[in-house]
Every structure is written in C-alpha cells, then in structure tokens.
C-alpha cells in the first residue's frame, strides 16, 4: 500500500494525519537525524538528500541532452 493512499495534501480538518511530505520526512529523520549534520545544519539537507537548485537544473539539462 502506497504512502499517498493515506497521506495526501495537508488538510486542516484532519491535523492528526500528516501530509505526504511530512510523512516522508518523519521516516527519514527517524534514522538520519544527526547524520551529516541533518537536523543540525540547515545546509545539511542538500548534503545528504536534496539537490541544490543549480544541481537540479544541471541534472535536468543533462537528462534532456542524453
């Protein structure tokens, strides 16, 4: 069963049910909090998981080219 079947967009009527983005992040943070400064340094999000915008842009460009 996919996460998104239950966790959709954030709905103020059901605050006990986290949205999909929050549900994913909570899963990550259960183990990775403290690893590579995740949760300690705001820049760490781009170190371990997320690409920076310019990296994303270059990745998209490479995808188009190849």
């Amino acid at each position, binding site marked *: 069963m996919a996460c998104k079947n239950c966790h959709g967009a*954030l709905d*103020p*009527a*059901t*605050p*006990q049910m*986290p*949205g999909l*983005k*929050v*549900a994913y*992040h*909570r899963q990550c*943070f259960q183990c990775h*909090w*403290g690893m590579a400064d*995740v*949760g*300690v*340094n*705001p*820049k760490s*999000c*781009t170190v371990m998981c997320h690409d920076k915008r310019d990296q994303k842009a270059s990745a998209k460009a490479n995808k188009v080219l190849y």
Partner: protein
Amino acid sequence: MDKNLKKPSEPADPLSEQRGKAGDKPDADAIGDSLNFTRRRFMGTVAAIGGALGVASLTSGVKTASAKEFSGSSDRYGVLYDLTMCVGCRSCEKACNEENKLAAPKVPFDDPSVFEETRRPMVESYTVVNRYPNPKDPSKPLYRKIQCNHCNEPACATACPVHAYNKTAEGPVTYDVNLCFGCRYCMVACPYYVPAYDYNSALEPRISKCTMCDHRVKHGRPTACSEICPTGALTFGKRIDLIKVARERIMKNPDKYIDHIFGEHEAGGTSWLYISGVPFEHYGFPTNIQKAPMLENTKGFLSTVPLVFTIWPALFGMLYAATQHRSRSENGTDHEKTEEKK
C-alpha cells in the same frame, strides 16, 4: 387678557416679598438661617445622589465588564508547534519572508551562523528560529521558532488606544498600520514581548508582528510556515482539534513529552500551542504568565473610568458651587454686621 396671569408688580418670589416688607435692608439672621437650611438640604441631596450614582456605576461597571468577556470563537484556527520535531531548517522563516514580501535577510536562510546569537522577531522578520542546547542529547540541539502567539484575549488589542489591533473570528490578531500612531503600548502590554517597532520610520509609525497569514487563514488555508514545515513540527488546524492531538501525543509518549501544552491556558489561551520534551523555560518561554487573560488585571478598574469622568466632575462641581455660595453668604453677613456695629 387672561385673568389668571400674574400682574407685573406682583412679586414672584416669597423671599423677595419678605425682603420688600422688611424694607430695603434684609434681615441678616433670617437669611442666614434660610441659607444654612438650604445648604444642608442641598448637601444632603448631593450626597444622596452621588452615593446612588456611585453604587449604580459600580454595579453597571461589573455588569459591563462581565458582559464583554470573550473566550474566542470555538471554530478558530491555531498552530500546534511540536518542539521535539523542529530541526532548525528555517524553512518557516523563508516562507514567512516570501509570503509577507519582507526585505531579504542579512544572513541567508541556509547559513547556520545565525544561531550564534539569540534573536527576536523584528521589522524585517516576523518570525525567527533560535537554537538551544539539548540537555538530553548534546548532539541534537533544540530549536524554537518565535512569533506572535495570537492570544484569545490579546493584551495588545486591549492596550491599543486607537483599535489598531483586532482579534478575528478565525484566530489571527491583525494589526492596521493606518490606524497606528506609534504609542507602543502594545509592546509594553504583550506578555511575550512580540510586537516590534520600526525605529527607522519615525514619521510613519509601524509595528511589525506575525499576521498568522490572516489572508490565507480566513479562507481555511494553512499559514505559510506550517505549510512549508518539512517535519510536521508545525501543524495547522482548528485549535480545539489541535489540543486533542497534543494531548494524544503526550499520552502516547509520556517519556518524550512533558505533560504541559503551553498556550492552552497561558494568558487566557493562545492560537499557537506548544508541546516540548524539556521544560519550557529551557527555550526561554515566559513561564510566569497568569492563566487569566491580561485584560482581567485592568478590566474592573477601566470599566469605571468613563463613569468617573462623567459623574465626579458633576459631583465635585456641585460641592464646589455650594461651598463658594456659603462663603459668599458668610462674607456678606459679616460685612453687614460690621456695618450695623458702626
């Protein structure tokens, strides 16, 4: 011509008639007794009226005060801030900055050097995130986002003499810059020291504080900060539902949370609610805040102020007039007695 009409030569006042009969000079003792009697009666009447009005004003003041009690709309929104989930990413600061079209920050949002000093909300930032040491695990520092708590009975709105603040039915406490004349009473009144004054703009006074994204919340949309929060540390919803969520989390994880929802009762309750794993004073929360709204401290007194301004001048004016009249009469009598002795 009507026969009932008095003749022009007929004296209207019996006292003047008496004076006329006694000759040009009035009987001083008789007038003195008459004036004394009148004065006593006058004083008694004034005291009775004053006492009755005083009692009435106090009674009506209590009624007025109790009638204006406001515990907030039951359907109002709020934000539950779970401090144990905050990772200090400052996404909320960035989202707030963009939503309210504020000036670019001096320190970029992804620069951790900003945590080296403790900040407070200012003109250029309606919300700030500060870092605190974690007594349980030093490797995982604690973070706290600071912004207006949007009290159920806001002290800032009570203190504002021009009604620049307004508590909306949806929950946010809004501020109208067009009405503000810069007295800064709101800054003194706020128990959380949130409103910030724009000292760079002396001619156009301006207070800045979190708007709780009033333009979004009134349409049922979450605040920008709670929408962007990646870990769900900020949860937007109806305040009454959020209290249930908070209680459930505390009940299910008694080792993780302390048994206290900050904002449920503080200063009469706030739209922002907090749960934490360490005592709230560790984060710098003011923990000496009374449970009753700040308004309760002044409501009884302030409700009598308009009555004092209307009744007291009249009462004391009458007393002054009476004493002046008496002193004038006594001076006149003494003068006449001196004349007679001569």
